[in-house]
């Protein structure tokens, strides 16, 4: 099962390598990872997407928590949450495909952020599956370059 785990950690040099070292050392996999400062500059928030059965996810969260520089570990996928990923895609856009590309981008509410005579650079934001869907659609037209941010996620506020 896919899990999205959110980790608050000290914003200090070397902390990220403690996390990635833990994953490689113990054979856990990381599908994506994204990290940046929080409102509090001494603390970073790291979102990682991983896969594993219940026992593995339990080990992952416990092992993360055991790292001294880790402040809080939440398996966001335990509850309702929103996830987003952004992708930049440079797609071939020549005379005969330009319209087609723009239509696809429009359906996905994407934006063209760079234009050249033979290509568009496109920005799309959405869930990981939406991002995957537009990539699949643009592939036959000709993707030249692609950069994904990896997933970030946030638990939904309680409805009460």
């Amino acid at each position, binding site marked *: 099962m896919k899990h999205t785990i959110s980790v608050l950690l*000290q914003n200090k040099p070397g902390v990220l390598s*403690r996390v990635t*070292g833990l994953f490689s*050392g113990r054979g856990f996999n990381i599908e994506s990872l994204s990290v940046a400062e929080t409102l509090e500059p001494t603390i970073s928030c790291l979102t990682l997407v991983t896969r594993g059965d219940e*026992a593995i996810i339990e080990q992952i969260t416990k092992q993360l928590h*055991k790292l001294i520089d880790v402040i809080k570990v939440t398996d966001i996928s335990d509850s309702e949450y929103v996830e987003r990923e952004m992708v930049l895609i440079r797609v071939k856009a020549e005379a005969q495909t330009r319209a087609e590309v723009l239509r696809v981008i429009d359906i996905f509410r994407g934006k063209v952020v760079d234009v050249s005579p033979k290509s568009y650079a496109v920005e799309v934001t959405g869930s990981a599956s939406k991002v995957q869907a537009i990539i699949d659609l643009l592939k036959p037209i000709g993707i030249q370059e692609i950069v994904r941010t990896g997933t970030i996620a946030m638990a939904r506020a309680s409805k009460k």
Partner: protein
Amino acid sequence: MEKISGSQAIIRCLQEEGVKIIFGFPGGAVIDLFDALMDSDITNVLVRHEQGAVHAADGLARVTGEVGVALLTSGPGATNGVTAIATAYMDSIPMVILTGQVPTALIGNDAFQEVDIVGITRPCTKHNYLVKDAKDLVPTLREAFHIARTGRPGPVLVDLPKDIVAKMIDFPEKKPIRMQNYQPTYEPHPGQIEKACKQIIKAKNPVLYVGGGVILSNANEELTELARKLNIPVTMTLMGLGGFPGSDPLSMGMLGMHGSYTANMAVAHSDLLIAVGARFDDRVTGRLDAFAPHATIIHIDIDPTSISKNVKVDIPIVADCKHALIAMNTWFNTASDFNREQVAASHEPWRATIDEWTKKHPMSYLDEGEIIKPQYVIQKLDELTHGNAIITTEVGQNQMWAAQFYKFNKPRQWATSGGLGTMGYGLPAAIGAKMAFPEKTVIDVAGDGSIQMNIQELATAKQYKCPVKVAILNNNYLGMVRQWQELFYNKRYAGTIMEVTPDFVLLAQAYGAVGLRATKKSEVEAVIKEALATDNTVIMDFAIAREECVFPMVPAGKATTEMLLV
């Protein structure tokens, strides 16, 4: 306030933490620290190899329960320490390792004797630091000691650039350490304690499975109280030896790969396994699905990651072993709807079954006239030291025989590399132990192979008038590996025959120590007696039955009931 140098501040921190002895080896990056140490009351033991320094600090930590400290220089000094740091990490030994580092301006430049020791030791320390600002020196050191000794203990490394320790700083006042992100759970959840106790009352065939956590948390008395009160048989891991008196009728000895027949059978037939400070290591469990297959499992451990890591636990208790056992004892002492005598008596049939197993296959070996059996040597060591010596070991058959045949009745008289199995551990660890307790007899039970890995520390022992005794069970083989080859590799002794071995008696003499040799069983006792009576470092070289194997043995990956017996 008067300013002091960074290195003086570090020494003051060590004093604040109660450090009396540190083990070190100098180099350009730590000259300042060595210099400052000279003016302090801390004994600075100069070892002969950095691995020895860290093992010695580890030995001291294991026998005293205090934080062991080692001081190494940058680059090769630090990397030489890595094996020993990993050794301490695997066995959760509280240590602080100080390493010198090149000046901050040179870090990252491939400077002379620069190595990223924080990067290298990240996976084998509980935590580590590179101090980049002199004002962080003291707080970092205090935090390092705090982390090393609290929660599940472990080694913490602090890397100290040369320019940082040379700076003049104010020595900040000591404040209680509060770390938002590090707060180990000491107190058990009362609901879990009650659940566990009720389960114990219900059990017919309970077993206490005791690991190193009981030693680390000084919980041996509480454990003994629980076992005796409720008449529960006890087995210990390699790390747990001494956590419960080995001569007690309730003791089944060690379990696992070279555990007793009784202990392994008892676990396999138990209906309740109470794991206390143990971690279901593969050397203990054998084939996982056949480990304690009928048992409900209670697991007490301060480290949540240990719980349900290998074996699914029914009643987890995250807590310090001592606190949890106190809570359980209190529950049993005060619970009204339960009759303690009745519960204890209800385990009698179980104990009878266990006694039958012991009668059928006691811990034993075949006596062969004048040939020296290694087990006999250990039994004699036990007898002639009245079971009171501190025993350290090397790794291999020698280690297992020591574990099987010395009766450890008290905690902290046993220091062995369990998790990592580091050959070369025993001699420096013995020196560390002896430096801590000069009045106690300290014996390193060694193999002829392992002892050569840190033999240079004989010079350290001599220099510091540290009369440790080394008992080499000399089979002229890398015996444990040879045993596997004998049993599972058609007796193809690839790389296990040591065709050249030094004359250990002459070698001892070369270091100014005493060398003694026994080649016949009838000489063993006299050699041990002489060694114990000699006020000098002694090597005893016992020419043992060369192809003796350690039994029982559970072949790797087999169920623990599938033991090869004597």
